[in-house]
């Protein structure tokens, strides 16, 4: 399980929650983005509340702020920075005071502030609002220092803020600001703040620690003048107030005896949020028609120009990330919390199983946040602790078992060499899905490879084990890897030619010392010239997510397409940024709705017929757009697969396809007649609409046949006295199948409906007495 420290490292990679540039530029941490959002929405009171929450002496601050946020604004080159300062002034004028902070009885410790400059008053404001009594010493009148530093400041606004301060136990005492006063205050008060803008004896800014602004003992300092690159000195209001605030935190820690430096990382102003600017149209700054102040309408329009900086680059591309309306940082936290649940509902199970593990987010993310790593680890952890929802991947794992089991898997050594005990130098590994839906093409390709490649080729049809890996079942994957290894070693450790990118990655994991080459690279080598092909003139290419980082694969596919006379036009996000078709990560099994959205979204990004090099991509896109597999354009295989491209074989047909491939291959290359035990044929007619409904429910034709055979065998069934329909159930594994059917005159049956559930009800299946509490099959 993820350690909390690991979580923090992972979380930190997603910057979506990081502050936008306007906020990081503000020494007072003003939430400018929210302020503008409120203004744009016409929520003026909420906007003012934000000013009051973030700014010290808001009436003064808004009047004198030198708005560094505007320099940082990403709108700057897209019509001009937001007029934040003018909008703040508008807001302060348009709406009266919104918050009334509680005045608490003063605490025992007291603070002295030397100098009523902006830094000193900010420190006094912050500390007094924490309930400490503050004495501000000033020369002349208490307003003098500020009015001198900021001539634009209206005396009435300042007076109002000063009066408000006095309510918070701030006393103003006229005094000569000199070192003797400092010595006296350092002894009499718990802590002292020296405003450098008013105290000539203050140290230089560079002499102090920038994190705490501690000068010595219990004394902090801030409020220095800044200088421009040309050496001109000026008072930066935001910087001075920021220093007052920073020192205020240190002073408060001195007063309460807390570490001065612990947990102050949040105060470090850092731009971490990545905001993509593509597609954002320039929009010119709205200027006040009156020349000096905004009207409400103008202010709303101006505020509405805010880009509302945010990253969401991965989320925009991924239907899975969109589904739960959050972003990776939040998902990481949810997955972590989910894994920590001992008793209670695991609400993030759906999150970990909704990811296609395709790796697109990792490539797109400027910080390379990988949801795939996170979700796969969460799945492995859930499997290890036996809390993985049983149904999430069960069907896919059963399919893997079928593809790699006795019924479908087979290994044919090159017949020409096998007779003398020799082995082929290469092994064609078509993968379980090509075997399932393109059996004839697999055989045609094998015949060609045997002819074209010297040294012989064997044919191994099985599952590569990727479903187990995707399901987080490492033990099952390793067990399967051992089977693959046996076969590979039995064949004399040949070079493996894989036709599926998921197979490539699984085989590389399972057999790290084997040479695994993509079939496409090999074909590109042995087919040097152009070949004739009846294909669309120009096509988009889908790079399968498994080959995202496999440039050789991508290059070979494009090269073969060019030889077929196809002009490849790159679709949006091709190569390593390619999007998944929804087959990856078994999301098609766990969350078919997400998988379908992925297929649809990706298909919509193609403007031309799409050429795929992964049969599942082809299959899933075929429902949305014209899609062809490489087998459909290669001369060796195109004919064997005529008309296959636009049909999508169902789940039952796939399993039957694998069995048929095995029979044909064994017969053609080994001269063996099918050794499969032939069950007495049962004639079950399944109308198309029923078949389609069954596919959606993951009910196979084989399941329905077995159910009818079983029900007819035991006689445990219901009869509808209105129409003669028969209804019965069958539970061959963790699922109970219900079949409603009619008995036909010719001894066959016609299926009317089929449904299934996982719950066990005594008496609902036969034989009833054998019903026991089920165990998890894959646990």
């Amino acid at each position, binding site marked *: 399980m993820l350690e909390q420290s690991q979580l923090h490292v992972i979380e930190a990679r997603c910057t979506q929650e990081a502050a936008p540039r306007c906020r990081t530029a503000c020494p007072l941490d003003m939430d400018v983005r929210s302020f503008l959002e409120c203004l744009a929405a016409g929520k003026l009171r909420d906007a003012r509340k934000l000013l009051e929450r973030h700014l010290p002496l808001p009436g003064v601050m808004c009047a004198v702020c030198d708005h560094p946020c505007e320099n940082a604004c990403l709108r700057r080159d897209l019509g001009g920075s937001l007029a934040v300062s003018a909008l703040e002034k508008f807001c302060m004028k348009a709406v009266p005071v919104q918050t009334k902070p509680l005045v608490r009885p003063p605490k025992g410790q007291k603070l002295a502030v030397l100098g009523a400059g902006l830094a000193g008053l900010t420190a006094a404001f912050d500390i007094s609002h924490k309930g400490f009594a503050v004495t501000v010493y000033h020369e002349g009148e208490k307003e003098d220092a500020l009015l001198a530093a900021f001539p634009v400041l209206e005396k009435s606004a300042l007076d109002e803020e000063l009066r408000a301060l006095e309510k918070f136990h701030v006393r103003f005492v006229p005094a000569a600001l000199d070192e003797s006063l400092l010595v006296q205050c350092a002894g009499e008060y718990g802590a002292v703040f020296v405003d450098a803008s008013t105290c000539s004896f203050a140290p230089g800014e560079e002499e102090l620690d920038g994190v705490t602004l501690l000068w010595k003992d219990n004394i902090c300092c801030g409020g220095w003048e800044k200088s421009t690159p040309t050496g001109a000195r000026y008072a930066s209001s935001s910087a001075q107030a920021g220093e007052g605030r920073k020192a205020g935190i240190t002073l408060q820690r001195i007063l309460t005896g807390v570490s001065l430096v612990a947990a102050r990382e949040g105060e470090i102003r850092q731009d971490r949020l990545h905001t993509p600017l593509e597609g954002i149209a320039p929009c010119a700054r709205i200027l006040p028609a009156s020349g000096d102040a905004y009207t409400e309408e103008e202010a709303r329009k101006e505020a509405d120009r805010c880009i509302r900086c945010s990253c969401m680059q991965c989320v925009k591309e991924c239907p899975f990330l969109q589904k739960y309306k959050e972003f990776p940082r939040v998902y990481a936290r949810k997955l972590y919390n989910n894994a920590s649940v001992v008793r209670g509902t695991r609400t993030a199970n759906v999150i970990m199983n909704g990811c296609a593990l395709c790796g697109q987010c990792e490539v797109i993310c400027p910080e390379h946040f990988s949801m795939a790593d996170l979700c796969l680890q969460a799945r492995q952890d859930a499997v290890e602790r036996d809390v993985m929802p049983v149904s999430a991947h069960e069907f896919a794992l059963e399919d893997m078992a079928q593809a790699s089991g006795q019924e479908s898997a087979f290994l044919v050594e090159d017949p020409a060499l096998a007779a003398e005990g020799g082995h082929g130098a290469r092994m064609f590994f078509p993968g379980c899905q090509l075997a399932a839906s393109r059996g004839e093409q697999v055989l045609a390709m094998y015949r060609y490879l045997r002819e074209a490649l010297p040294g012989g080729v064997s044919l191994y049809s099985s599952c590569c084990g990727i479903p187990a890996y995707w399901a987080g079942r490492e033990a099952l994957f390793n067990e399967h890897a051992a089977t693959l290894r046996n076969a590979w070693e039995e064949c004399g450790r040949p070079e493996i030619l894989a036709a599926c990118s998921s197979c490539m990655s699984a085989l590389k994991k399972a057999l790290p010392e084997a040479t695994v080459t993509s079939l496409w690279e090999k074909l590109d080598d042995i087919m040097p010239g152009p070949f004739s092909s009846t294909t669309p003139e120009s096509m988009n290419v889908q790079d399968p997510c498994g080959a995202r980082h496999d440039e050789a694969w991508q290059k070979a596919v494009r090269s073969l397409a060019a030889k077929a006379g196809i002009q490849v036009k790159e679709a949006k996000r091709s190569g390593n940024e390619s999007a998944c078709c929804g087959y990856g990560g078994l999301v098609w099994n766990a969350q078919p709705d997400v998988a379908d959205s992925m297929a649809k979204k990706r298909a919509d990004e193609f403007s031309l017929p799409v050429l795929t090099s992964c049969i599942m991509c082809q299959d899933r896109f075929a429902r949305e757009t014209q899609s062809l597999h490489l087998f459909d354009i290669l001369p060796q295989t195109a004919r064997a697969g005529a008309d296959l491209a636009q049909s999508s074989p169902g789940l039952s047909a796939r399993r039957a396809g694998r069995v048929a491939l095995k029979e044909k291959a064994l017969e053609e290359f080994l001269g063996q007649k099918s050794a499969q035990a032939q069950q007495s044929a049962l004639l079950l007619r399944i109308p198309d609409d029923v078949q389609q409904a069954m596919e959606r429910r993951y009910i196979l034709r084989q399941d329905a046949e077995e159910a009818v055979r079983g029900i007819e065998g035991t006689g445990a069934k219901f009869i509808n*006295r209105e129409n003669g329909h*028969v209804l019965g159930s069958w539970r061959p594994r963790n699922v109970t199948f219900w079949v409603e059917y009619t008995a036909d005159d010719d001894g066959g049956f016609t299926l009317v409906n089929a449904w299934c559930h996982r719950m066990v009800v005594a008496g609902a299946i036969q034989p009833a007495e054998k019903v026991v509490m089920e165990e998890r099959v894959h646990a």
Partner: protein
Amino acid sequence: MSLEPNFTPDSGDWACARCGAPLEQIKVQALYMHSAFAVILPRCPSCGLTLIPQSLAEGKMAEVEALLEDK
């Protein structure tokens, strides 16, 4: 989480084909992942063969299965 107690067939007049008896609404146990629920379902009073309507299997039962799997 409890199931609604009583579920009748979605449609039709069903009888046990083996016993010929009309079905009666009888309380039975539904079990899943170490949890048990009492539920009233159409059942043959003679042999105990029990019918689970499609609406129950794909509705409440599927919901409860998902909830229990996430426990």
